């Protein structure tokens, strides 16, 4: 207990602190590098390799270099080996892009006015409203999708309500892209509202007044003052919604039915019943490339915006 170092005086003021944090930098980061190296970087390297491997006869794959996985995205190989252009997978990629884009835009269209309204409330009510936006997000995603199955499905709330209004009985709104989109907008909405709110709240109100003094009407003020100044929040929200939308699996597999696939469900299928691992890996690489392109694009835009200011 009577530690002699306790009385060692030869340290300058900053020395204890410098020593304190010194080797933390190595040992502190080692566990995250080990975990991410094993459970993330290694698997991604392997899936990149599998995407150029050869499909095994009974599922799985063999380590022979082969671009068939990528080729299959656009061309189907006939019995005699001739290649025929087949748009079916291209259509799935296009649908994925359109649904993810539509989800982002619809979320944005709701998020901006709602976030603006909340930001103008007195502090107490503002905190409660933010809490109410966050709350549904804590409910399991699968249950939030399931809720829409009950509402839109056969014998669901909406068809029953329409039947009451003399519409034909037995209508169902399930198993199409609209149903998938409805569930996607609902599940990702809080991810858009919260960052947009964080930006709008920081907005300097005197700028809106200045715009008005310079004869800008509400629409001009919205377009030229409010939206540009909330751009960081809008971009953050767009990333938070668009990226998981591109990889959506639950919504298309529950709401879209078997035929209306997105890239996520297509990938999953290749590792389940369909069992074409190199093709699934190739689609996965394509999805990852799309996400990376989008992230790089937004990062560049943000950098250019910052440079311009």
């Amino acid at each position, binding site marked *: 207990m009577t530690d002699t170092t306790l009385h060692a005086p030869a340290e300058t003021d900053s020395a204890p602190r410098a020593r304190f944090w010194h080797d933390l930098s190595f040992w502190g980061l080692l566990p995250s*590098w080990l975990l991410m190296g094993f459970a993330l970087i290694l698997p991604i390297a392997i899936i990149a390799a599998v995407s150029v491997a050869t499909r095994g006869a009974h599922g799985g794959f063999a380590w022979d270099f082969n671009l068939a996985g990528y080729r299959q995205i656009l061309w189907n190989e006939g019995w005699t080996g001739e290649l025929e252009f087949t748009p079916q997978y291209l259509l799935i990629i296009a649908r994925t892009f359109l649904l993810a884009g539509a989800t982002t835009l619809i979320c944005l269209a709701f998020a901006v006015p709602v976030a603006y*309204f909340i930001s103008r409330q007195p502090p107490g009510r503002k905190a409660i409203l933010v809490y109410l936006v966050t709350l549904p997000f804590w409910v*399991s995603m699968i249950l939030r999708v399931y809720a829409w199955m009950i509402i839109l499905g056969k014998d669901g709330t909406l068809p029953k309500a329409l039947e009451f209004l003399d519409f034909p009985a037995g209508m169902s709104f399930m198993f199409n892209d609209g149903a998938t989109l409805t569930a996607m907008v609902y599940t990702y909405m809080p991810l858009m509202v919260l960052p947009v709110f964080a930006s709008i709240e920081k907005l300097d109100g005197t700028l809106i007044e200045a715009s008005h003094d310079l004869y800008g009407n509400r629409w001009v003020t919205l377009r030229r003052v409010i939206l540009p100044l909330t751009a960081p929040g809008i971009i953050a929200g767009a990333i938070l919604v668009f990226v998981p939308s591109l990889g959506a699996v639950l919504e298309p597999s529950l709401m879209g039915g078997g035929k209306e696939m997105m890239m996520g469900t297509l990938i999953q299928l290749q590792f389940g019943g369909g069992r074409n691992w190199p093709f699934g890996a190739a689609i996965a690489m394509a999805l990852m490339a799309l996400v990376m392109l989008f992230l790089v694009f937004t990062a560049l835009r943000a950098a250019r915006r910052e440079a311009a200011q």
Partner: protein
Amino acid sequence: MSLHHDVKRYPGLGPLTALFFVYLYAPLAVIVVYSFNANRVAGVWTGFSTQWYASALNNAALMNALETSLIVAAIATTVSTLIALSAALAIIRGKNVRFRKLSETVVNLPLLLPEIVLAVATLILFSLIDVQNGMLRLTIAHSAFCTPFAFLPIRARLQGMSLDLEEASADLYADRWTTFRRVTLPLIFPGVFSGAMLAFLISMDDFITSNLLSTGGSTTLPVYIFSLIRAGTSPELNAIATLLILASLILATVALLVAARGARETA
């Protein structure tokens, strides 16, 4: 003369926001209402009943799935929070850290990748190195993708905190462990708590990865619910869903209250 209209006010936003909240909560309310329906066909209301709650609570498969989910989430939360805490301390407090930016990107990497890609990639890895144990697969994968969710609140907390108290502690000859335990940890606790809650939530909620990696004996709650939904909507499923919604709302409220108190105390 005062302005007779407020230029910052946009007409119609109040009703729109009210509608927005109806939109957020109505679907959840629908599940709750239908869970009390006596009829086997969920959409046809024949009377009030709590029988589906009794059958939900007596459902052994459900309880098994809940147990699996809780075990996986508990391990993944502990592992990811500890790893995130040490990474955040190193990245924010470390001196002369090499690869600081790169390390931060690596910790946050699961957020940048579509989950389905990571899930199938992990599935390939586990089948190559022959890891058959479902629980082991799930805890490793969950620990990885929960780490950034634990990391971000801890990092934010550390970054907003001045070094004064830690320096004072070191000046008073407290060793590094004492300083960490008595000064740093209590100060960043709200961040650690938020991070752990987020990690727990993300793990409990995960479907995509768990669906691909779980084996017969390690079905998690969302995977089990998915199989129930596939079998068709039923009032028992609605009762299960209602219980889970209730549990999440209570958990969320507790978490947000603790976070708000932490923010107030140190404000």
